[in-house]
Structures are given as structure tokens and as C-alpha cells.
């Protein structure tokens, strides 16, 4: 290649202005866009604190919703907090055993096999199913057959939402356990069950707990699977087979109520729900950070 000697000697001048402008311009653009991207977060947090804090009191957690349109009554959403806790609790009891055992199958019993790849593929697809479709499924399975909107249907829907999260996070936690540990356990005469429970699960426990907490946080905030399965109720939790309130559905219902007091309570419920979810998220992260 012919190199122009005059240009070649020109090593001390800086970049042409055009290229410099391009560099600085692009840097400015991406930084501005990034600032724009986190702006909604601050706006959301600020408005929730500003609008939700004034109504927050002890009664909010312990009393039932005041009748719509009545001003000055004690207003709260204790029943929604209980409802969310019960439904998420049952969903956890349903999804965690199934999820953890499926993950054990994927990580310990069938690594690299065609079946395992297929199961993993299905779980990944399952994690992408919109939560409203899961709600429709729970409606078809439970609401149609029992002819009643119920906490059970809501829990079932939440369990289906949680399952893929539990499977995928547990599997990645199990895969982090060093192979040497498993071989050592087998070498000492442990059976597959003993190795899996006492060695693999034990050392992967923080990672598994992180996954479970993240799944719980996700389920606690879900609304779409609940609006036509658990529906809503203005009373305390009754039975598993009756309509049950939840924090997320309460926020949605109050927005369409048209009453200012209800709008304010929706903000407070959002504050409580977001606080709960942030605590779950932070503890999930702390669990894996403290790894020995």
C-alpha cells in the first residue's frame, strides 16, 4: 500500500474537528438518554412518597376499607395485606417444592441430555407467558369448575407465575456447587439422595433462597393473574374458596372508583406494596452477597 509520506509525518496534530465533534456529541447524547431513562424511577418514588405518606398510619394496616364516599371514617387495607400474604404464601408452598425438584432434575440428574434441554426450554417459555394468560388459565382450571372467584384460584395463578423463576434461579444456584464436593461425597459412600440433599442443596441454599425471595417479590406485585381469579373483597379473609382482596388489585380498583379518598389510599397501598417488594429484593441480594 502506498502511504503518503506527508500525512504519515503528521503525527502531532490532534484528530480532525469532525471526528472530535462526533465523539463528544455521541457521548453527550448517550449520557442525556441515560439520565432520561432513570428519570421515571425518581418521579415514581417521589410521587409515591409524596402522595402515599400522609395517609399512612397504624390504622392503615389494621382496619378495613371505609365505605366508598364516606369522609372522615377510619380507612385502611388490612384485609388486602392479609389477602396478599395468604395467596403469596400458598403460591410459595405450591411452587417451591415443584420448582426446586425440577431444578434438581435439570442440574443433577440429567445434565446435557435431550430431555433436560427440552424441560429447560419449556421452563424458559413458561417464564415468558404473560401473567394475564396465566390468570386466564387459572380461571379456566379453578373458577369455571368451582363457579366461584377464590383465593385458591389466585394462589394457583401466582404459583404458575413463580414456578419458572424458582426453577431457573435454583438451577443456576445448583450449577455453582463445585463438582469436587459432589465427587467427595460420593467417594465417602453417600448415595445420590444423600449427596443431593446434604451436599448440593446445603451449599446452594443461599442462592436458592435468593431465587425464592425474588419469586415472592414478583408474585406479591402481580395484579393481572388476580383480577378475575381472586377478584376482590371489602371484608377480612374468609375461606380459601371465597373472593379475597390483595394490595395490587386494591390499587387497580381504587383508580377506577373516581373518589379522591380512594385515590389517596391507592397511593398509600402502592407505598406499602413497593416497600415490601424492595425489602424482599434487598434481602435476596444480601443473601447471595454474604456467601462464605
Amino acid at each position, binding site marked *: 500500500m502506498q502511504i503518503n509520506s506527508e500525512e504519515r509525518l503528521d503525527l502531532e496534530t490532534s484528530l480532525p474537528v469532525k471526528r472530535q465533534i462526533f465523539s463528544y456529541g455521541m457521548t453527550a447524547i448517550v449520557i442525556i438518554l441515560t439520565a432520561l431513562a*432513570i428519570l*421515571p424511577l425518581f418521579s415514581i418514588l417521589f410521587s409515591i412518597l409524596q402522595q402515599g405518606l400522609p395517609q399512612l398510619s397504624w390504622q392503615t394496616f389494621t382496619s378495613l376499607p371505609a365505605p366508598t364516599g364516606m369522609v372522615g371514617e377510619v380507612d385502611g387495607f388490612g384485609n388486602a395485606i392479609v389477602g396478599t400474604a395468604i395467596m403469596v404464601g400458598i403460591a410459595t408452598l405450591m411452587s417451591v417444592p415443584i420448582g426446586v*425438584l425440577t431444578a434438581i432434575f435439570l442440574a443433577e440428574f440429567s*445434565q446435557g441430555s435431550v430431555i433436560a434441554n427440552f424441560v429447560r426450554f419449556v421452563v424458559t*417459555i413458561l417464564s415468558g407467558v*404473560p401473567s394475564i394468560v396465566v390468570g386466564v388459565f387459572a380461571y379456566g382450571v379453578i373458577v369455571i369448575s368451582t363457579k366461584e372467584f377464590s383465593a385458591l384460584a389466585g394462589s394457583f395463578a401466582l404459583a404458575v407465575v413463580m414456578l419458572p423463576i424458582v426453577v431457573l434461579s435454583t438451577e443456576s444456584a445448583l450449577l455453582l456447587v463445585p463438582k469436587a464436593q459432589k465427587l467427595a461425597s460420593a467417594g465417602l459412600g453417600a448415595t445420590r439422595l444423600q449427596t443431593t440433599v446434604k451436599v448440593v442443596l446445603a451449599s446452594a441454599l443461599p442462592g436458592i433462597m435468593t431465587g425464592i425471595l425474588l419469586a415472592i417479590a414478583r408474585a406479591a406485585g402481580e*395484579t393481572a393473574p388476580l383480577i378475575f381469579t381472586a377478584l376482590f373483597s371489602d371484608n377480612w379473609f374468609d375461606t380459601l374458596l371465597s373472593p379475597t382482596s390483595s394490595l395490587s388489585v386494591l390499587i387497580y380498583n381504587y*383508580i377506577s372508583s373516581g373518589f379522591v379518598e380512594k385515590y389517596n389510599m391507592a397511593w398509600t397501598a402502592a407505598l406499602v406494596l413497593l416497600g415490601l417488594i424492595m425489602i424482599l429484593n434487598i434481602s435476596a441480594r444480601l443473601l447471595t452477597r454474604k456467601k462464605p
Partner: protein
Amino acid sequence: MHDSSELKSYITTPDRIGFNQSFTGLVKGFAVFTVLLLFWMVWIILSAAFPAIQAFGLGFFLSQTWDVNALVFGALPYIYGTFATSLIALIIGVPVAIAVALVTSETFLPNWVRSPLAAMVEIVAAIPSVIIGLWGFFILIPFLDPVQLWMFKTLSWMPLFGTEPIGGQGGIFVAGVILAIMILPTIATISRDVLTALPADLRSASRALGATHWETLFRVVLPTAAPGILGAITLGLGRAMGETMAVTMVIGNSPQFTVSLLNLGATIPSILANQFAEALDALHIGALMYLALALFGLTLLVNIAAVMIVKTLEQR
């Protein structure tokens, strides 16, 4: 890849064989159950949608009328709403997400700014969509009202912006903006992981040849990362199409078909959220199930595409 000798190294004494086999069986059984769950879901929704499939056939997707009282159902407004809002979300969200991915993976800012930035972007993904909807309803809609009015005034010669926005009620465009906010963390986080996983040699080689930082990004880094970023965008699209609550709370939920993005509209998830609890007639429930089936199929296709893109990337 996997060493099968590990599996054979387990010693099984006779009294433990039964116990161990039942454990293996249990684990397999639950894995099979998880797989069956997906097929169960398809079966339940398909069989519940059957009355509507029989009544309306494929013409369902091209018909504009949705009349609950007359029991005539057509899905076009919701299909259009779903695609329109998702496309707006991608048009707004993708450039911003790539910018965020670049800022958090490159060295434009010092590290003590970058890591909190990345964490903040991820926090948005943890906020429940009903809370984003609440914010959208009270804060974003009033904020976007003047923007929408300006769009109408300058662009109303285009059918896409051809109707005067209804103040304070939101609409398709507002729903698209809120979806952009919601899918941004997904796209940004995955793209950042793709960018940081690229070999450093690529950059060094490009810089050594005299390219500036940005020339390296545009000609070397971004083209190499393109398949991974495409996978991230596809995942974001799947999320946008299925997103329910935030959209329902800002789109206005009008079953009227409209081309204009400034008008009130509805998406498949939003109409499901709106009408399911009150649906009593078998054909109405069937039509909603048919919509759910269509949404299920669409997101399934998009998610499978995303998995395939990521897989081919892993193989390279």
C-alpha cells in the same frame, strides 16, 4: 461436556436402592409435571376458546365489531392496539436502552457513577406494573397531554395522528410510552451483559488502528454484539405485548377501532383485564379466551425466537 463417570460413582447398597430410586422418580415426575403445565395451559385455553373459534373462525382477527350485548366479537382493535403500543415502546425504548447499556458498560463515566446507574435501571424492573400504572394515570398522562396536543397540531395530516387527543385520558401513544419505560431495563441489562462479554482484543485492535472510542463502538463493538442485542430486544417485545396492568390503566380501554395513536384504544391484555371478571355469556367468555389464545401464541412465537437468537449466539 458433562462427565458421565460422576453419575456412576454413586455407591448404592441394597437397602438404599428403593429409597434412591423413588427419589429419582420423584424428581423426574416433577420435571415432567412442569413440562405438562405448559401443555395443560394450551389445552384449557384452547378448549374454552372453542365456542368462539367455531362461531367466528379466523375472521375474528379482521372484524372490528366488539358488541357484548349482540354477542358479535371481532379482535382487530385489540390486535392493532397490541402491535401499535409495542412498536411505539420499541421505537422509544430501544435507542435509550442501548444508550444505557453503553454508558453502564463503557468508560464515559467513572465507576462510582456507573454501578449505581446500572442498579437504578434494574430497580425499575422490580416495580409492580400496577404501581407504574398508578403513576402513569396521575403523573404521566397530564405530563404527556401537551406533547400529544403538539403532535396533533403538527402531524394531523397523517392518519396516525389524525384525531384530537382527549385530555387526561391517555390513549395508545401514552400506553406505548409507559411500555417503553417498562421494557427498557430488560433490554438495557441484557445488552450490557452482551457488551461486557465481548473480548477486549476487539477494542484494542480497533483503537490501535487509530479509531476513536466512538468509531470503535459503531464499527466493531455494536456490530459484534448485534445478535445479542437483537435477542434482548425480542425479549422486550414479548414483555411489551403481554404487559397488562400499566397499559390498562392509561390506554382508555375503548373497543372502537381507530388508526390514530392519539385516540383511546385497547390491547388484548387490557380488554382481558377489563372484561373477564364480568363476562357471563359462554360466547363472550369464549371470545375472551380466543383473544388470550392469540396473545399466548404471539408471545410464544416471540419468546421462542428470542431463545433461538440467544442459542445461536452461544454456539458461536
